[in-house]
């Protein structure tokens, strides 16, 4: 009796695990540790107690929490941490991953289905990990007549541009990767890259459906960028600044959505179009043009584009929060009292003072930052819910209707919004020297 699948044996499994472990240890010792050393040598270390630290002393200090915590806190102030972990890529990717999971479960619930269920025992919580592993293990196939450098570059550029967009978003007071005076202008500049990347991807794969998809994406993004920019002009007029942090700070008392609901609606619709989400997912309309400009991407190249598009989703939702919903501003929810105790007394790990009682360097994060982050994440999740919901409710629109919406309706509404802002400014209600 022939058997297709080989029989499972425990010894094979153990052998596989030990093999993998062996190779990981060999490669780590031969390549990983030297590489880490080289990297650490070129990083500027702080001067503590009049001594310049070196990598060896850092490793030494890591074993001692009393000395490690200040080091960690120091590290958190560096740009590297901001870019890689908290307000930057890592935080955004975490939210993006949560969004994918929530989207699938919510859509399933709306459609009376179950959704991901088996992976990770609890309601399929590890489904995304499984999908990622699958994408990584897939072979990357490149069409024979594709323009290979551009074809390779397109997904990488897409993810990188989305990450650059993320870098501009202020999450909590003082926590922004790139705090620049012309922040909003920088956002527009970054958004302007996406149509170029999509047409690059569509054209370089040298195939008909991606080409049509790329052209559609170009039309769609270009025509929706204008109302998108116009709808934000009102806020710029009222606040008199382009700096996103200052825009957030100007909304301490009330968010701008109270005065500019029309602008918010226009901006929201433009977000949907820029993100290529249903009802505006024409560039990826699978029943018309297979998968649009993504048709020829396979394996992790597709995964990168998906990562980029969900980062972009987070970034746009966050931008909506920053501009219209007041960013991190919100009532104080984070408890103050226990925090103060920790600062004064330290964490009591054991009754006897044998173990460190007072840990210098705590707290790692200020309370404003934690409170601000909580509000920011809550508002962002709310906006993301409304971005995800249309996927279950609306069909796709047609290209001519889409362009009509963009050029006729949204631009007019955006101008109405600008006039409202002008009336508010010249009426002396808000703005420089206004009543409020």
């Amino acid at each position, binding site marked *: 009796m022939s058997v297709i699948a080989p029989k499972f044996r425990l010894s094979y499994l153990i052998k596989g695990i030990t093999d993998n472990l062996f190779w990981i240890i060999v490669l780590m010792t031969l390549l990983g540790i030297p590489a880490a050393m080289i990297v650490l040598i070129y990083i500027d270390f702080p001067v503590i107690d009049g001594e310049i630290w070196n990598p060896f002393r850092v490793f030494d200090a890591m074993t001692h929490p009393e000395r490690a915590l200040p080091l960690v806190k120091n590290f958190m102030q560096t740009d590297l941490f901001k870019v890689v972990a908290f307000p930057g890529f890592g935080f955004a990717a975490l939210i993006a991953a949560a969004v994918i999971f929530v989207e699938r479960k919510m*859509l399933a619930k*709306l*459609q*009376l*289905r179950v959704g991901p269920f088996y992976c990770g025992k609890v309601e399929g919580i590890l489904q995304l990990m499984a999908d990622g592993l699958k994408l990584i293990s897939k072979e990357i196939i490149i069409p024979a007549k594709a323009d290979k450098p551009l074809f390779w570059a397109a997904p990488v550029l897409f993810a990188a541009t989305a990450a650059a967009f993320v870098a501009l978003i202020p999450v909590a007071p003082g926590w922004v990767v790139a705090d620049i005076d012309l922040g909003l202008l920088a956002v527009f500049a970054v958004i302007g890259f996406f149509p170029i990347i999509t047409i690059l991807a569509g054209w370089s794969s040298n195939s*008909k*459906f991606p080409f*049509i998809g790329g052209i559609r994406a170009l039309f769609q993004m270009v025509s929706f960028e204008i109302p998108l920019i116009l709808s934000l002009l009102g806020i710029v007029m009222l606040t008199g600044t382009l700096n996103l942090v200052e825009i957030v700070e100007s909304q301490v008392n009330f968010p701008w959505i109270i005065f500019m609901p029309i602008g918010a609606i226009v901006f929201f619709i433009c977000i949907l179009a820029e993100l290529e989400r*249903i*009802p505006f*997912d*024409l560039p990826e*309309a*699978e*029943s*018309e*043009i*297979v998968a649009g400009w993504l048709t020829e991407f396979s394996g992790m190249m597709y995964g990168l584009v998906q990562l980029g598009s969900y980062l972009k989703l987070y970034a746009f939702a966050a931008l909506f929060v920053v501009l219209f919903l007041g960013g991190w501003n919100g009532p104080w929810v984070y408890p103050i009292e226990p925090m103060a105790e920790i600062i004064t007394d330290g964490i009591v790990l054991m009754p006897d003072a044998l173990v460190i009682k007072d840990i210098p360097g705590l707290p790692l994060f200020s309370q404003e930052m934690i409170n601000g982050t909580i509000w920011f994440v809550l508002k962002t999740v709310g906006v993301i819910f409304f971005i995800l919901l249309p*996927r*279950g*409710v*609306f*069909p*796709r*629109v*047609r*290209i*001519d*209707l889409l362009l009509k919406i963009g050029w006729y309706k949204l631009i007019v509404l955006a101008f109405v919004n600008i006039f409202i802002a002008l009336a508010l400014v010249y009426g002396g209600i808000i703005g420089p020297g206004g009543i409020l």
Partner: protein
Amino acid sequence: MSQKLPPGLQLEKVDDRIMTLNVGPQHPGSGHMRIILKIDGDYIVHCDPDPGYVHRGEEKMAEYRNYITNIPHLERPVIHDSCNILYPYCLGVEELLGLEVPERAKYLRVIAAELNRCVYTEYWLGIYGIFLGHSTMFMWPVGDRELLIDLLDKMTGARVTHAYFVPGGVRNDVPPNFEDVCLRQVNYFEKRLKEYADIFYDNPILISRTKGTGVLSREDAIKLGTTGSVLRASGVDFDIRKKEPYDVYEELDFQTNVLKEGDSYARSKIPWLDMLESCRIIRDALQKMPKSGSVRIKLKPKPKGGDTEVYHRVESGRGSLGMYIVSNNKPEPYRLKISVPSFRNLIAMPHLLKGELLGNLPPVYWSLNYWPVEADR
């Protein structure tokens, strides 16, 4: 252009703009067929449907099999609508053999046919939804279809390929408490159908998308010989259940749905209205059905037809489905032609798609109520 070209070649200015797109057979929006499109910009200038990817030669196969063993084969072209495709065959063979079907069997046939029509239409509607990018409208109909599949399962013993109709009645009687279960599930199904209105049929985006696309005028619909929902969406009141009632449709209380617009929206709405009407028919038939009685006439093992020919047609989920059986005193039919509605509606496709936007391909194509497997037979 003073370019030197090899003999026999010409530079064609217009064709430089035109791109040929092969939509299918490996395309999420094609089904088991290919549509060769020529597009100028975003406009379709030429459309050439190329069916035949699932051609199985059912008509040739039928010539080698006797009137009973043909049954499981003939339902293969549309397994989702398998009762309706066997219906004209059974009517035709009954006329050939001179059989009179028992009254209860007639009602059971009507119930099974209407349930099957809903099962097919739900599947069709699901694909119409996903073609428009409306994933909820794919999941809901395919889920609600389960209610009726469960009923058909109890009734016929199989989920899709029922092989329930035979010349001379139906294979078996329904289980004891079938009427109650059927009534309960059909009522719930009708309630669910009405919930489709908010999210799909009254959805302004859907209306703006499909209203006025692929308009088939009344004259063209008649001229091109379209049938079923396509015809009735163009304003022609022609339903074979009303016009040439077979079995007990004369005694049942229902109406035909006609819309005048003739566009993709009307063509997609007619099957939905038909499903609501089917629920009425099923309830009415359950009420009027004789509570007991024979459901099948015993046949000889290999019945022989006379030396004649019959043509019978019924209203299937897609439209008029006819069977032309030529018999020559043998247990096998001499020639069996299945005149399928999908194939007849396909004739309208090149006519409708010319001049449309590429984005209108899915709604126009699928609103033709075209089932590729059935058209290929």
